[in-house]
């Protein structure tokens, strides 16, 4: 068994209204920032999974992402492998 760390990035599905992104984009003027658009706001969940290999670990995260972390009606997700956290001494 080994430990594998992933990040799940959850964002609004393409085409779905993103009120947060819209509000952030609208406020950029006040910071004097130009040229920024198509802002989408989501969330990122990082987690470590114990599994026999990377593929099985990924399968666990896939399931978690699609059933719990993202709302498939209005959200999309992308999984990336990341560096494991340092073990606590």
């Amino acid at each position, binding site marked *: 068994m080994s430990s594998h760390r992933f990040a799940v990035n959850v964002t609004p599905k393409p085409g779905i209204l993103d*009120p*947060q992104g819209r*509000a*952030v984009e609208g*406020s950029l003027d*006040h*910071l004097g920032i130009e040229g920024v658009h198509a802002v989408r*706001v989501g969330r990122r969940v990082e987690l470590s999974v114990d599994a026999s290999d990377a593929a099985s670990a990924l399968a666990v995260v896939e399931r978690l992402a699609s059933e719990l972390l993202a709302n498939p009606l209005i959200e999309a997700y992308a999984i990336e492998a990341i560096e494991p956290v340092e073990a606590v001494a």
Partner: protein
Amino acid sequence: MPVRIGVVVFPGSNCDRDTLHGLELAGGEPVALWHEQATLDGVAAVILPGGFAYGDYLRAGVIARFSPVMRAVEAFAADGGLVLGICNGFQVLAEAGLVPGALLRNRGLRFLGRDVRIAAERLDTPFTHGLAAGGAPLRMPIAHGEGCYYADDATLDALEAEGQVLFRYVDEEGGQAAEDDREHNPNGSLRAIAGVLNAAGNVAGLMPHPERASESILGSDEGLPIIRSLVESAARAAAGERPLALVAAS
């Protein structure tokens, strides 16, 4: 001639009208300050009202603090001007660094709309001098999802030492509520802190809504003295008198 008190209106402030109304009841002349304007129209004090400025997207208050009016408010505060932040207004002040600490999600992770009791820690501030002596609990509503006051221990110790804790959540007898007392400290604020002062004593923030407790027909008028204190202090400031409580607690 009633003293002019500004109420900042962000798009999405939904308590600005309530606050304007409360100021009238407290004897002030309310002046709405639109978020896009860069001046404060010569008001003698400013209130940042509750609501969901900018929908509270990203973090409560974080987008609001970059609006033009906030630059004017920051300058006003730096100059000793009186500023009161209520609920979302408190969050905006904290994001802007005008008061210490941060407001986190309520301990129970849910929005809460209900009554609480708070007591003033000191009566010698521009925001509390009109309250009755004796520290009687004041009943008024909270309505927020992010009202859990947080600062690290060193900061909390300093706030207490410097007399910057302005209000705490209390029980019916006026005793400080525990952090896990869901009935009396529903959002789980550290050290039951419901409101704070900045170091200079001219800027304050509190999570409960005194403007919603300004008439007995609505359930409580125990919040009105807070607004009235501000109005009177502003009147003195406008008349050139020295504001109270620029002196640290002894």
